[in-house]
């Protein structure tokens, strides 16, 4: 029966129970809860508890008794997506739940929607926030610290959270307004293109930060002359970069090269005591 209603819903809106809206307060409660979306991640079903927890205020407004039990169970299925992008999905799912409560669509439509959206949403969120915006903002702030800007970490937080909070808040309400068609809005924002560009910005920041770092490291210590030291340091960066590309992990390089470094200096010093012991 519910499947039949689901398929008919698009064409025949008349003669059905009116859709009950959850209201703005409930949406704000969902938004607040979404900040704890990953607080109970587990291996088998990943973020399922988080999703059910976030959408619960809407469910308790729409359902009672057996319907509520069913709705809670429905949202405890496997779920895994990007935490910030999930707000748009939560908004859209609240809208779908309203329609379901009014008997217009079946529950498998809600489940199908979530299952379809979680992968691509994670793809957009992971590549935008984790792989692009975070390294870019961090590289910018690191370059800031190296040029003696004490509030650089604040710039990092502001830049990052400007995108983060806007996407969360706007995403939830846009998702609620548009329901299943929320992807159209995402199309317009086009985070994917921005992800691509931010790599160039991050590249510049790392270049600038690197130059400041090399300058700082070679400034006062003119044991070999500043230019020669800079060249050696750049060569070291390139060697380490190549090793990292070849899957040597950072921790091995950290300890391996430290031992090498200590061994070389102390070993040389044992034969040619340039640095004298004692004060």
């Amino acid at each position, binding site marked *: 029966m519910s499947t039949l209603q689901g398929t008919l819903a698009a064409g025949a809106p008349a003669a059905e129970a009116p859709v009950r809206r959850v209201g703005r307060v409930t949406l704000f409660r969902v938004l607040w809860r979404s900040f704890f979306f990953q607080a109970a991640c587990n*291996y*088998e*079903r*990943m973020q399922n508890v988080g999703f059910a927890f976030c959408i619960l205020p809407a469910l308790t407004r729409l359902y009672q008794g057996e319907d509520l039990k069913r709705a809670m169970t429905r949202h405890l299925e*496997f779920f*895994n*997506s*990007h935490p910030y992008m999930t707000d748009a999905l939560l908004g859209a799912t609240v809208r779908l739940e309203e329609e379901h409560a009014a008997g217009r669509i079946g529950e498998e439509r809600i489940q199908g*929607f979530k299952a*379809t*959206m*979680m*992968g*691509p*949403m*994670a*793809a*957009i*969120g*992971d*590549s935008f926030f*984790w*792989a692009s915006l975070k390294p870019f903002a961090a590289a910018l702030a690191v370059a800031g610290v190296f040029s003696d800007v004490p509030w650089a970490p604040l710039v990092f937080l502001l830049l990052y959270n400007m995108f983060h909070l806007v996407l969360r808040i706007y995403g939830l309400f846009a998702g609620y307004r548009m329901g*299943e068609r929320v*992807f159209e809005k*995402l*199309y317009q924002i086009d985070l*994917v*293109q921005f*992800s*691509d560009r931010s790599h160039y910005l991050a590249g510049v920041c790392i270049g600038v930060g690197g130059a400041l770092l090399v300058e700082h490291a070679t400034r006062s210590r003119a044991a070999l002359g500043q230019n020669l030291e800079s060249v050696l340091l750049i060569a070291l960066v390139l060697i380490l970069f190549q090793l990292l590309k070849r*899957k040597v992990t950072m921790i091995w390089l950290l300890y391996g090269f430290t031992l090498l470094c200590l061994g070389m200096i102390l070993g040389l010093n044992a034969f040619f005591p340039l640095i004298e012991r004692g004060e």
Partner: protein
Amino acid sequence: MNPFYRVDNRLVHGQIIATWMPHLRLQRILIASDTVPNNALQMTMFRMAIPQQLQFEALPIKNAARALAGRVYGNEKVLVLFETVADAVRLFNGGNPFALLNIGNVHHAADRRRFTNAVYLGDADIEALKGLMERGTRIEIRSLPTEPPIDLHQALSEVR
């Protein structure tokens, strides 16, 4: 170049775009599935999530096997994604045997055995994969390119 074959029940998601894409220098993503090409919403979402410089298509398994066996993609670096192990085995038997299969994410279900945090395989899956291994295919369990791969053959023999 040989395509890279991967089983991932979330299909295109963050791991693919943020890690495998640069690692494999991908030029094309091909989803081999009998359901995805007919799901308009899913197709729209994938198009949106995949950067523009990548080609993307989804084909029913039979057509995908024909296309791959006929080498229609020439020198392109292709990632072939399956939703389930069964789909991968069908493509293998459908005239396109491959030498390496990556298992990235197969999530938990009641009757499945845990191999890693992201990969749980049922008995039917394991039997089907054994069939592939007997025909010389190497099967690795690995979610991210930075993780050390786990060889399924070894993992199975260690338990016995």
